[in-house]
């Protein structure tokens, strides 16, 4: 009973996040392929969107912080030395993040299928 409650609580938390903002979804897709630091994410987003998503550092870290607080991603233990003796902070996707991204992907796939059924595409 308790486990069932927990499961339904997690599902509710995930559903509350849907639909994901496109940029959040894309970031989850990127992190699903491997850990990455802030600048890497910014660059990858730009490349994957053919230059349409150019996030500044402020917007990037607002989004990252929100995703961390929503438990979709978390800082990883990977350490890479950077300039001036500082270290880059890497992020990785959490289980909750993977499930949320999968749910969003399914939602979008359903939408695409509906569009195909209606011979829109």
């Amino acid at each position: 009973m308790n486990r069932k409650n927990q499961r339904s609580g997690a599902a509710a938390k995930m559903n509350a996040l849907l639909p994901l903002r496109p940029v959040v979804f894309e970031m989850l897709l990127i992190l699903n392929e491997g850990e990455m630091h802030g600048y890497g994410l910014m660059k990858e987003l730009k490349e994957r969107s053919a230059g349409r998503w150019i996030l500044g550092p402020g917007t990037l870290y607002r989004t990252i912080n929100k995703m961390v607080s929503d438990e979709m991603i978390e800082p990883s233990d990977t350490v890479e030395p950077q300039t001036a003796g500082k270290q880059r902070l890497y992020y990785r996707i959490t289980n909750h993040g993977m499930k949320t991204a999968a749910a969003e992907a399914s939602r979008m796939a359903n939408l695409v299928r509906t569009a195909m059924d209606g011979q829109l595409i």
Partner: protein
Amino acid sequence: MVWDRLPCRPPSILPRLETFVSVTRIYPTMDTSAPKATGENLKSKGLYRLFIRAYPDDFHKKSAEHMEAVFSESLSRARDSGRLHILWLWLTTFFDVLLSAGPERWNSIFGGPNPQRQTGKNKTMTGKLDSFLQDITYAGRMLAKSPTFTVIAAVTIGLGIGATTTIFSVTNTLLLRPLPGVVKPGELFTAHRVSEDESSFHSFGYSTFKALQEGGATVADLAAYTSFGGSVTSDGEPQVLFGLMVSPNYFNILGVQPAEGRLLIPDDDLPTGDPAVVVLGFGTWKAKFAGDPSIVGRTITLNGRSLTVVGVTEEGFSGHTTLGEMGAYVPLLSQMIFRDETVTESRESLSLETVGRKKPGATLEQVSAAMNQISDELGESGGRRSLAGIDIRQFSNVLALASGPISAFMGLLFAVAGLILMIASVNVANMLLSRASARSREIALRQALGAGRLRIIRQLLTESVALFLMGGTMGIVISFWATGLFEKISLPVELPFSFDFSPDYRVMLFTGLLALATGVVFGLAPALKVSNPNLAVALNSDTSGAGSSGSKLRGAFVVSQVAGTALLLVTAGLFLRSLEGAGSVEVGFDSRNVGVADYDTRLNNYTPSQVRVFFDELERSVAAIPSVVSVGAASILPLSTSNSQATISFPDLEQIPDVGLKRTEIAAVSRGYFEAMRIPVLDGRNFGPADVEGGQDVIIINEEMANQMWPGESPVGRHVGFGSRESPLDVEIVGVVRNGKYRSLGEEPRFMTYRSSAQVPVTQMAIVARTTGDGAEAAALIRGAAKSIDPDLPVAMTGSMKEINGIALIPNKIAATIAMLFGSLGLLLASVGLYGVLSYSVGQRTREMGVRMALGAERSDVRNLVVRGGLKLTVTGLVVGLALAFGVTRFMSSLLYGVSPMDPLTFAGITLILTLVAFVASYVPAKRATETDPMQALRNE
């Protein structure tokens, strides 16, 4: 087409979805090796750090470091790609901060992004904040929607604000920024004797200083100082060092702390100068002694004398004025280290400047009253009627004597920069007006849906302020770059100045306020204009426009731009003509092929006899060089940075009324000087071998003195008195030489007296050599000869005579360059403004043009109509601008040489240039108007 409405296009999304749902792979992370930090990176990071202070504290603490790193990497990549990318990065960064810091602040105050969740007393507040945030977000979106408009407008404002910010940065460094190490500068004051017209400042003797030190109840303490030039030997090379002789309380009054050892104490200030001690400046310790940690207690050689280092001043402190980085500080009374004089004489021969600290709560007036009372009791001013008493001034970063001219010069540059800002802002106001006019349908729709006029105005103002703030950001970037250029200006002489013009928080604040103020002022008129359209007309019309009053406003904008540009160009033109005129001003000597090297023998502690031997031998050695045509020496060179004056009396003219004491420029020169400088002797003779110490003292005067004092007669053989009327030194005039310019090119003819360097004690002389080669080579020859006589004596100033004279023209060259640069920029902006207005007007009048041509108007009629419109605006602007220039340029007369402030050629030239540019700017849209197809134009309507 449907895919365009989806966040991602299908070809990219579908394969990725499949991959995602089926497998989870870990790819190696991409290579994003960090770029190396550079100085420029550090400056930009500093600016970015300021930007991100806009975020709330918790966000800042969590993410600032990472954001900085991301920005730094983006900047490095942008640098590799060129300047346009850097510009784009700064613009997008500005937007990024604007759009993300606002909501974060909102969240930090109200705990969430949704205002509906708020209840109770916070509701009104949150509602206001929410609509403000909406305004900001909407402004950001609208600006991002038209990137071309945004970039052009931001760059235009950036140029204007950048110019103003750069000038402010320089002013900030010279006059406003508190000097490092100086504590509570508001309590400090300086004391001088001033002449009645406040045109000259005079220093104090030692006994007066000691008396003033007992300044009574209002003065906490008073310190005295005087500067000296020294030579220290470091790495085997003698190097010039500028220092201060100070009373031991000097550091205490300023609040300076030691970085090493201690500063001066009363026991150091011994007349015997034994033990002789020195405190080193932090910069000197680092640069000349490699920051030697065991410097305290070490003995160094200063001017050939051994001194024990007792301490080093704190880092950052480099003296109490911006214009003077001091390398060493020695006690006041140990100054006989630098001069072989008896103590009693040397005390009174000191020319002491003072700096004091008021007691808390005391006013400058109280200090002044106390000081003047002491001075009156001393009876100091009794015999010096020209002096008005003691003048107490608030301590400032530059010496009182220099603060007036510097403030005036910076004021001029500010006015020029302000004009360019005005022209740029008007351009953007014009762009905003056109853009807002084009949006009048959207605005009318919003009003029809219930938006109040105030709300619309606020929205439009938010857009213009955001735009101007972006321009401000650009301006700061430009000023970082421009001030860097200023710091790299090299002068032919080593001066004790080192400037850090880079913008600080004061400059940021200034720029922010300036951007805000200009954003509101120049955004208000367009906002007011378009927020009141005729709803029915605007909603029913496909075409847009703010009507004829909008055209009038646009016309007024162009007129003000042309007027501002005319004023700028006239200023620039006058400065350029003046510089051109400077080359043709008759200076009274020939500086071509002349080299100079100036030696101060006090730097190696020469005795008077050694001085004479050194300079005689140096002149002989230089004269023996085959390429040297003639050689001479002078204690003061004309049109250089130094000058000296003396009082002269005319005993044989006392029967003539009003002939009393006169002031004359004075220099001690050698026999070869007049020939080397090609100054012709017009009457009498040159100094000769018989004019030596112990014989009859002789002088040579210039023709100005001869003509004024003995009109129509020869002054040769007459006697005059040097010094006070009571005990003058009797000297005989043996010759008259041609007039010259001595202090500045613009000066009126003044009295000049030359004494023979063989008859007066000199310690510092500039050797001038005329060669068959150029001046710089001649200077090198002199330095070579001096080195062979005394390798340890450093050269105080060297270069070609042209370079030395050029120093006097530096302010004019800076003013001319800036005025020319800003003038050209103003011309460009004004022509773009004119072009924009006429293009817009042509676009609006397409139907009218079509009707005119359909009714039989020739194409040339239509073209002339448009060109006439443009020229009408230009002529109106020109009339206003030239009238302003007539009024303003007269205040520049002291900076102009050989050209009148009303120079007709300049005024006519500028009128011609502006008219021509305006014609071209009008002709292009006019030509487009003639290409209108009448039928098409009518059909479109």
